[in-house]
């Protein structure tokens, strides 16, 4: 046996040992965290939008996972890694929304579920939250549910709080730091951001969290992750699967409008020195009578 072969054998033995060990630890650790993360597919933030016939139109801009949701996926994955847990990504939408789920899978989520139903078009946040809450309940024994702070299309920012209320779980919204999660004591401590600074809040599990950008940059999908996601079979649940029917939106969208066109004539200020430019600019600004 040459040196190369010896090394190969050692690797194989280590691999086998690792598998056995991780199986043993899996059996011993009954405190796994079961985590759900709710994501949405939205037009890219660089999309140019126009209202046509009272509806939003984004041309051929790509649809992507809502940027705020990437922070939620990151937070969920970090908790799963810290506590030997697993993360299931959920979205509501048409077949095309699977792309947002595939992004979440590529980042490291272990499973994904698409909730699709013809009646779920132009619904309000209350209906969306009822569907998410029902899906989280159907998954069973979820300890933590993560959402982004808001979707960059409808910008309502209501779903996390409403989902929490429907589940009867603490709503830990706008979380910047997860200081501690103790699966055995069933407790969580987070720092939430508010206008005045950060509040350290503790609560009991299960809980719903929404995550803000301060949490830290979301990871990029890995090459292996992308390959895994492209092959993933994503189950589709209907409202009937969730035991839901007759969901009524309380909010009605009347129309989408373009923003009023502003006629802006740009006046470039020039001068022989910064001081001269500044004096002219200050004159102009003071003449606007806004200060």
């Amino acid at each position, binding site marked *: 046996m040459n040196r190369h072969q010896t090394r190969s054998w050692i690797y194989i033995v280590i691999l086998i040992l690792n598998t056995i060990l991780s199986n043993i630890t899996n059996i011993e650790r009954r405190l796994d965290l079961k985590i759900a993360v709710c994501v949405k597919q939205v037009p890219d*933030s660089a999309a140019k*939008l126009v209202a046509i016939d009272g509806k939003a139109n984004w041309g051929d801009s790509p649809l992507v996972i809502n940027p705020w949701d990437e922070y939620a996926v990151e937070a969920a994955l970090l908790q799963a890694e810290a506590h030997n847990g697993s993360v299931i990504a959920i979205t509501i939408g048409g077949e095309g929304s699977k792309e947002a789920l595939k992004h979440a899978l590529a980042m490291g989520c272990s499973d994904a579920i698409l909730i699709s139903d013809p009646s779920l078009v132009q619904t309000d946040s209350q209906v969306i939250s009822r569907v998410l809450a029902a899906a989280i309940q159907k998954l069973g024994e979820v300890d933590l549910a993560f959402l982004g702070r808001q979707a960059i299309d409808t*910008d309502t920012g209501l779903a996390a*709080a409403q989902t929490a209320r429907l589940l009867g779980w*603490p709503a830990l919204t706008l979380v910047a730091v997860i200081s501690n999660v103790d699966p055995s004591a069933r407790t969580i401590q987070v720092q939430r951001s*508010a*206008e005045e600074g950060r509040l350290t809040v503790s609560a009991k599990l299960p809980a719903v969290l929404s995550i803000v950008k301060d949490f830290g940059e979301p990871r990029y999908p890995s090459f292996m992750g992308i390959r895994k996601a492209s092959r993933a079979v994503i189950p589709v649940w209907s409202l009937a699967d969730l035991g839901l029917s007759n969901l009524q939106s309380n909010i009605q969208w009347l129309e989408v409008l373009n923003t009023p066109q502003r006629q802006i004539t*740009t006046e470039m200020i020039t001068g022989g020195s910064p001081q001269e430019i500044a004096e002219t600019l200050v004159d102009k600004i003071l003449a606007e009578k806004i200060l």
Partner: protein
Amino acid sequence: MSKIWVYIDQFKGQALPTSWEGIGAAKMLAEQLGGGVTILIFGKNVEPIAAEAFQYGADEVLLADDASLDDYRSEPYTALLAKLARESNPEVILFPTTTRGRELAAMAAIDLNTGVLPDVTGLEVKDGSLVAIRPIYAGKLLSKVTCLTRPQLVTLRGRAFTKPILDASHTGTLTKFSPVLSEADIPTKVESYAAGEAGVSLSDANVIVSGGRGVSNNPSLTPPAGMDEKQAEIWKAQQGFKLIEDLALVLHAAVGASRAAVDAGYIPYAHQVGQTGKVVSPDLYIACGISGAIQHQAGMRTSKVIVAINRDPEAPIFKLARYGVAGDLYTIIPALTESFRKRLGK
């Protein structure tokens, strides 16, 4: 009890100034829907806020003052708000679009099985119902929405509605309520609070001075020895942001930043203006070294007067600007600060 209620957001016994804009909006609605304006104040040692509310034009204040309501927590606040609304069936409850206001409206809507119109910039009454204008896609489009159920919960975007003028002689009736939940029934605890940076908040500001990637671009600055390239870049940017802060101080302005500046580590995220930051609408917005990506434009395009200072005369930001200076922000900003200081007598 009136049909139109206004929730006042408070922190440590102080009403957030943007809350009073709700009374302005409520008075406008009351003219069309009839009746007066009822104010809700929850907290601990918050009775002085009731006196303020009367001066801003409240006809009635519903006050809950209790240790369990000391720090805002969604559970006791939602339970109390929902109970009061169930008992008196208001038509409309207005909230400020603050972190707490938005969350409370969201949760109360579940308890009351009604809808929320969040972050609204315009309101009108049509056939007895509110029709709200609310920006979507970070203000790239507007939506017209209405609530089919009652009460109609609305959160008002800061600065979109006018705060009433104080009238020291105006009075009303004060009714006190007890909380619904006892401490033992509340599953969350606020352990501590760490103050954020002092200074003017972006959402409330009349004037915002913002910096972008270009703020690190001063070739004549020499960073201290021993810094690597990235550290030197951040150090340079921080020198640039000091100039922006000086100008902001003279103008009593908030300091903003582009996403590029935040992502590069020049300044904390709390300052980010744009689609994934704050959407602002000040009277004066001065963009320094910001090229004007569409995501940034979405966050500031409704500012009344926009001034852009950028080295690159082709930068897209100039298309939005009323006034532009194609030049070096490192010399223009200090000159501007000095000039404003003289002219504003500071």
